[in-house]
């Protein structure tokens, strides 16, 4: 758990404070390098959702904090640097056809919201502050193996990996 979160929890703990939300116990997260989804945490922070003017239902909608993966068809990695916050598509999102033109419309006001953050902690702090239920998806770390052409011709006491002679 990062120090900033510890500081925030300490600041919030006042003797008169009724538990508006259940206080978090140890927020131990499993940090893996694969694309496994880490466990969801209870929101901790500063209750900005009370004054933000957002509807109450937004807090029930789960969102995802993730890093976009590189497109397999291209080498560009510019978009993989930022951390994104995205709301999951809901089954009953009130999709309807616009009466006048016939556009595909939706009553879900969060479906188009895409936020970008420089670091994961920033994204978590923001989602905590807004009271959103979030899940962190760790990015898949690409393991880069250096290949040296000279290794094809290196002496090896064991069986050769590639046999160069006929």
């Amino acid at each position, binding site marked *: 758990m990062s120090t900033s979160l510890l500081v925030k929890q300490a600041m*919030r703990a*006042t003797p*008169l*404070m*009724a538990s*508006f939300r259940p206080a978090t116990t140890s927020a131990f997260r499993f940090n893996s390098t694969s694309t496994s989804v880490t466990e969801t945490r209870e929101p901790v922070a*500063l*209750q900005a959702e*009370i*004054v933000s003017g957002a509807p109450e239902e937004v807090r029930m909608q789960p969102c995802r904090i993730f890093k976009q993966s590189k497109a397999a068809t291209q080498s560009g990695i510019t978009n993989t640097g930022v951390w994104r916050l995205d709301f999951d598509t809901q089954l*009953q*999102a*009130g*999709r*309807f*056809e616009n009466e006048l033109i016939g556009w595909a419309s*939706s*009553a879900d006001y969060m479906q188009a919201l895409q936020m970008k953050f420089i670091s994961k902690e920033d994204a978590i702090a923001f989602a905590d502050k807004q009271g959103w239920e979030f899940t962190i998806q760790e990015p898949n770390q690409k393991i880069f193996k250096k290949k040296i052409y000279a290794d094809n011709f290196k002496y090896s006491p064991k069986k050769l990996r590639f046999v160069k002679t006929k």
Partner: protein
Amino acid sequence: MSAAMAAHLSVVTAQSSSLSSARQSVIHLYRDFQRGVPEIMRTHQVDIPMSMIRTKIREEFERHRDVKDLAVIDILLFKGRQEYQETMNAWKQETHIMRYFIKDDAPPKPQGFLEKFLAGRD
């Protein structure tokens, strides 16, 4: 003239020292709202009975009953005072008053497959 207009019913932003002083400020605001209901009805000419307006004010205050964070209470007080000033000075119009009641009057959402299908909604 506009400086006097802006000053009418304006209040210095609260920085509550304790929960009890915050509670006092909130109760003052609540009483101001309830006292101003006849004037709201006269000024804005909304077709809503007085009891409903009083209940709605109570509902809005009850929504944040359990807030204990002083900073959040101060922001809510500021917003409440702002609403009060805008309502009593007639900077709001009838439509803004009716917005508080829109969720009560909204038609029920279609339930079940057939009703959703006929309404053309997901």
